[in-house]
């Protein structure tokens, strides 16, 4: 801690024209008052000719005194600050110093410059340097001859791609993205049931490449993944392809620059790419969910590195996915869906909603296996050009889903074991009846994609969808 001696304190730097203009004033203060201390931020030889100059190039005093502008003049009485002048103002400086006619020939006032202690990124550096960061995670020493990115690989912290080394400064900076305390417990991460704090999520978000403003989205995604209904533990262990897919709704998507348009499910957008990855790194590093260990996926899918996108809410013809799922207007939310890879439906000729529904249903029928139902959920990511066909016909989303139910109610005889010469299928006991491809609520539609292209994406769900396994979980994004 800085102990304050009674008298006057000036904090200044040579790089500031106002600070250098006041050199004669510092000399007057030194002569006229017994106790003047000048803390200099950039050049210990500045100001010249004044005794009591203290080198503050480490910025500890500037940081402790909360200096935002130089010069700042502080009066200390009985060990406590009794007054402060920011920048140059003759009246204020005279009042604090008790001296008259300070700075003859100088303007009556002149604003100062930014303190070096508040330069971009410096606050976090100083919080770490002076021990105020209050981070609890174990420190892992990396020797100077080690490459820090390789060190992260060596310790098994990576999903295969390079991670950003989680230094204390980067983690403190990441934590600026949330109002939550670092030691707030977010939940218990399967499969190892490790307690996960906001700080641990922030560490993994740094590694994933997130910006601090993405952290509330990552926290909401982790919370959603931990809801029992989502069944993260089971999804992690399965031999099936699935992994968690994060769908973002609400104003935060635009504020953090997420992509819901061209190539929304692809590469190239930092928020899309890193939010989903951060969730997967939390599961890997905290939960211990490592492929080949507890993750027994036969093939997996490329989205297991991280799969996150925003819904395109620009066409008001349908409500946003989050609004449908009970999130209030103007709020932001994540919805987690356990999904596999993307299957394209490339229908260029349908111009009526009836035709397009039947066409998309052909692809939907193949989810999981064309002869199995129900079991796997599905998510249709509808492009603007396909959406336009429904919008022009005035079909609500509920109407579209009703029509899907109808066309995806299939004669069981087409699907029983052995039909079409294929052993796989539903049990023979179902013969003669009908089966519905999806459980109630198992088929969902969200909107995304570029404005050109009569195509939609279909993302199959886990074979254990619904009460047997995973259900979609929506969480409002906090601060």
């Amino acid at each position, binding site marked *: 801690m800085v102990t304050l001696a009674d008298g006057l304190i000036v904090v200044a730097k040579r790089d500031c024209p106002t600070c250098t203009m006041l050199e004669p004033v510092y000399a007057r203060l030194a002569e006229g008052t017994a106790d003047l201390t000048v803390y200099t931020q950039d050049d210990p030889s500045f100001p010249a000719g004044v005794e009591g100059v203290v080198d503050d190039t480490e910025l500890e005093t500037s940081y402790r005194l909360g200096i935002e502008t130089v010069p700042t003049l502080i009066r200390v009485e009985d060990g406590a600050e009794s007054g402060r002048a920011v920048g140059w103002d003759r009246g204020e400086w005279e009042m604090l110093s008790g001296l008259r006619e300070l700075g003859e020939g100088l303007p009556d006032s002149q604003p100062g410059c930014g303190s070096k202690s508040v330069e971009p990124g410096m606050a976090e550096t100083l919080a770490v340097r002076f021990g105020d960061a209050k981070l609890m995670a*174990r420190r*892992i*020493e*990396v020797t100077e001859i080690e490459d*820090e990115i390789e060190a992260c690989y060596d310790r098994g*912290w990576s999903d295969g791609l390079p991670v950003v080394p*989680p230094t204390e400064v980067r983690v403190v900076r990441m934590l600026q993205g949330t109002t939550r305390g670092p030691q707030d417990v977010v939940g218990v991460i399967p499969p190892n049931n490790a307690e996960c704090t906001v700080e*641990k999520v922030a560490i993994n978000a740094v590694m994933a490449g997130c910006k601090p403003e993405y952290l509330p989205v990552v926290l909401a995604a982790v919370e959603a993944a931990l809801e029992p209904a989502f069944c993260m533990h089971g999804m992690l262990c399965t031999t099936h392809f699935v992994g968690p897919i994060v769908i973002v709704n609400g104003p935060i998507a635009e504020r953090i620059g997420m992509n819901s348009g061209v190539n929304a499910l692809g590469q190239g957008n930092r928020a899309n790419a890193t939010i989903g990855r951060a969730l997967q790194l939390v599961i890997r590093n905290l939960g*211990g969910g490592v492929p080949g260990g507890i993750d027994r996926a036969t093939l997996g899918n490329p989205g297991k590195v991280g799969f996150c996108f925003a819904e395109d809410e620009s066409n008001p013809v349908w409500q946003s996915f989050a609004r449908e799922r009970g999130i209030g207007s103007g709020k932001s939310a994540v919805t987690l869906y356990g999904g596999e890879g993307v299957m394209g439906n490339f229908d260029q000729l349908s111009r009526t909603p009836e035709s397009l529904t039947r066409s998309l249903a052909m692809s939907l029928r193949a989810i999981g296996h064309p002869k199995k139902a129900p079991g796997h959920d599905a998510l249709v990511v509808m492009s603007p050009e396909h959406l336009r066909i429904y919008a022009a016909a005035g079909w609500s989303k509920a109407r579209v889903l009703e029509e899907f139910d109808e066309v995806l109610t299939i004669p069981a005889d087409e699907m029983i074991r052995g039909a079409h010469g294929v052993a796989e299928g539903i049990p023979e006991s179902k013969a003669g009846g009908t089966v519905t491809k999806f459980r109630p609520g198992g088929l969902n539609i969200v909107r995304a994609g570029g404005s050109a292209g009569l195509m939609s994406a279909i993302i199959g769900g886990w074979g254990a969808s619904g009460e047997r396994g995973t259900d979609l979980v929506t969480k409002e994004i906090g601060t």
Partner: protein
Amino acid sequence: MNDSLKLLDPTGETSPATRERKPPPESLDGLTIGILDIGKARGDVFIDRLGGLMEDRGLTVKYYKKPTNTRVAPIDLAQTIATECDVVVEALSD
């Protein structure tokens, strides 16, 4: 950015901070043993004798040689040994 070489542990902190060595095999029976001559003067005398003693016991031994003891093994040699052997005997040189 090398502001700190202290990293914050992203894990559940259930394993030691220092990475543990892989445990040695309980037995060499049925394993292929690599013997790496690192190129240090007269190192070959020692390890050839060691390899001979292993062969006398019926163990499978393969011999490799590094071009020079002053540099790390060429990646091709390291990969060859890793592919062909279960364990390797090698020395450190001053």
